[in-house]
C-alpha cells in the first residue's frame, strides 16, 4: 500500500439493466408520456368521487358491522348453490381432465390425440369463466346448472394442462423401464405414470376446488347462480351491511379451505 497513489473520489453505479445510454434516457420519457396520456383519458368526476367517499365509508361500516340476519334466506340459498356447484364442478372437471391430460402429454399420446387435447385445453384456458358463463347461461338458462358447467369447463383447462405438463416431466427413465417390460400403453400409464403424478393430481384438485369456490362468487353476476347473484342483488340495493356479510363469509370459506387443503395435502403425502 503506497500512500502516494491517489484513488478516485467519485463512483457511479454501473447501469445494471438497460445498458445503452439512449434507452436509459428514452425509457423514463416513454413511461412519463404514457402516464400522461393514460391519466388524461381518465374522466374523473370529482363530485361523484366525493359523494363516493361517504358511500365508501358506509361500505366499510357495513363490512365492520355485517348484517347476516335480514337477508339470511338469500345468503343461505346462495351459499348452498355455490358450495354444491363448486364440489360437483370440481369432481366432474377433474374426472374429465384425466383422460384429456393424458392425451395432451407428448410422451404418451399419438400426435393426433395430442393436438386435439391440447386445443381443448387452450380454448378452455383462454376464455374466462365469466365469458363462458355468459354463453352457458344463454344456452342453459339462469341458475346453478349453468354455473356448474362453467366451472367444470374451466377446471378442465386448468387441471388437464398442469397434469399434462407433469406427465411430460415425469421421470423418463421410469417410463422407459416399464416400457422395456413390454407393457401396453394403459399398463404404462398405470405403473409408470400414475404413481408419479397421483399426489400432484390430488393437490391440483384441491387447489382447483379453492379457485372454483372463488369463481362461483363471481359468475352469479351474469346469472349463473350461487353467492355471486346474492351479492349482486345486495350491492344493487345498496345493502352494504348484507354485502359485507357475504364478503366476510366468502373470505372465511376461502381461508378455511386453504387451511384445510394444505393440511389434507400434507396428510396425503
Amino acid at each position, binding site marked *: 500500500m503506497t500512500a502516494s497513489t491517489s484513488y478516485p*473520489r467519485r463512483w457511479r453505479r454501473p447501469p445494471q439493466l438497460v445498458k445503452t445510454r439512449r434507452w436509459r434516457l428514452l425509457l423514463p420519457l416513454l413511461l412519463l408520456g404514457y402516464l400522461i396520456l393514460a391519466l388524461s383519458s381518465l374522466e374523473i368526476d370529482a363530485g361523484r368521487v366525493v359523494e363516493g367517499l361517504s358511500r365508501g365509508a358506509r361500505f366499510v361500516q357495513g363490512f365492520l358491522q355485517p348484517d347476516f340476519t335480514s337477508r339470511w334466506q338469500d345468503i343461505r340459498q346462495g351459499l348452498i348453490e355455490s358450495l354444491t356447484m363448486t364440489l360437483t364442478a370440481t369432481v366432474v372437471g377433474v374426472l374429465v381432465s384425466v383422460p384429456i391430460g393424458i392425451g395432451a402429454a407428448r410422451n404418451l399420446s399419438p400426435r393426433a390425440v395430442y393436438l386435439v387435447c391440447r386445443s381443448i385445453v387452450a380454448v378452455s384456458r383462454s376464455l374466462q369463466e365469466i365469458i363462458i358463463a355468459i354463453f352457458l347461461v344463454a344456452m342453459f338458462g339462469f341458475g346453478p346448472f349453468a354455473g356448474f358447467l362453467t366451472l367444470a369447463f374451466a377446471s378442465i383447462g386448468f387441471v388437464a394442462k398442469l397434469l399434462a405438463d407433469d406427465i411430460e416431466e415425469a421421470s423418463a427413465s421410469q417410463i422407459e423401464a416399464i416400457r422395456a417390460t413390454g407393457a401396453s400403453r394403459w399398463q404404462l400409464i398405470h405403473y409408470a405414470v400414475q404413481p408419479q403424478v397421483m399426489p400432484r393430481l390430488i393437490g391440483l384438485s384441491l387447489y382447483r376446488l379453492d379457485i372454483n369456490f372463488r369463481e362461483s362468487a363471481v359468475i352469479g353476476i351474469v346469472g349463473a347462480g350461487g353467492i355471486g347473484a346474492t351479492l349482486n342483488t345486495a350491492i344493487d340495493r345498496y345493502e352494504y351491511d348484507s354485502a359485507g356479510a357475504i364478503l366476510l363469509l366468502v373470505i372465511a370459506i376461502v381461508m378455511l379451505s386453504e387451511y384445510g387443503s394444505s393440511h389434507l395435502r400434507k396428510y396425503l403425502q
Partner: protein
Amino acid sequence: MLTIDQLTKTYTGGDTALREVTFRVPRGQVVGLIGPSGAGKSTLIRCINRLVEPSSGAIRLGETDLVNLGGRELRQARRRIGMIFQEYALVERLTVMENVLSGRLGYVAFWRSFTRRFPGRDIENAYRLLDRVGLLEHADKRADALSGGQRQRVGIARALAQEPELLLVDEPTASLDPKTSRQIMRLITEICAERQLPAIVNIHDVPLAQQFVDRLVGLRAGQVVFDNAPDRLDEETLTEIYGAEDWTATDQDDEEPDFASQAQGSLRLVGTAI
C-alpha cells in the same frame, strides 16, 4: 482491547451454547478459536457484535459495555467491529464497490446510502482497500461474478471499510481450497499486523490456525478448555477439545489409523511451518 467476562448463552430451547467464557484480546493480537462443530464458536463471536443476544456476562470493547447497548448505540458499536463471514455473505446482486461501501452504512445517513452518494473520502478509501486486497479492477463487477477467494477478499475489504477496532472472522476458509485458504489467512493476519487490529478467528482447520494465529483458544461444549500459544497445543489437549475420533477424522479417513503417530506427525508438520 476486548474483554469477555463470564459470558453465558442459553438458547430459548434450553441448549446452553456458552458457559462462563472469559478471556481478553489485547491490541494487535490474532486469536484463533478452535473447537468441534456445535462447541459455540459461532455463537461466541456473534455475541460480541450482538447478532446473538448473550444471556449473561459482560463484553467490553475498550470502555464500551456491549451487552447493554440498544438501538442507535448498538449500531454505533457494531460499526467499530468488522466481521468476515463464512461463505463470504456478500450481497450477491450488488457490485463489488457497493459491497465494500456497505461497510460505511453505519456512518452515513439513509438518503446518502439510498442514492448511493457516499462521501468522497469513503469512496477513495474503498478503492484503496480494493487495491490492497488485489481487486481494484473488479470494482464494477457484480459480486456473484467473482470466484470464492475473490469474494472473501471483498468481504475483508467490506469489514475494513468500517475502520474497525476489532475483527470477528467466522470460518473464513470454510469453502475455499487449501491454497486460497492460506492466502486469505495470510491477508487477514497481515492486515491485522499493519493496523494493530485485534481479531478473533473461528477456524476448523487446526494446522492452518497454528500456522497463522498468535494465540489459540479451544472451546468444547461452550467452555474454554485451552488458552495458550499455538505451539503449546499438544495431542492430549486436541483430544480433549475434539474427542479422539473427531479430530483424527479431519486428518485422514484411512482405515485403522495409527492414532498417536499421526497426531504427532501432523503436529510436527505444523511445528516446522511455524
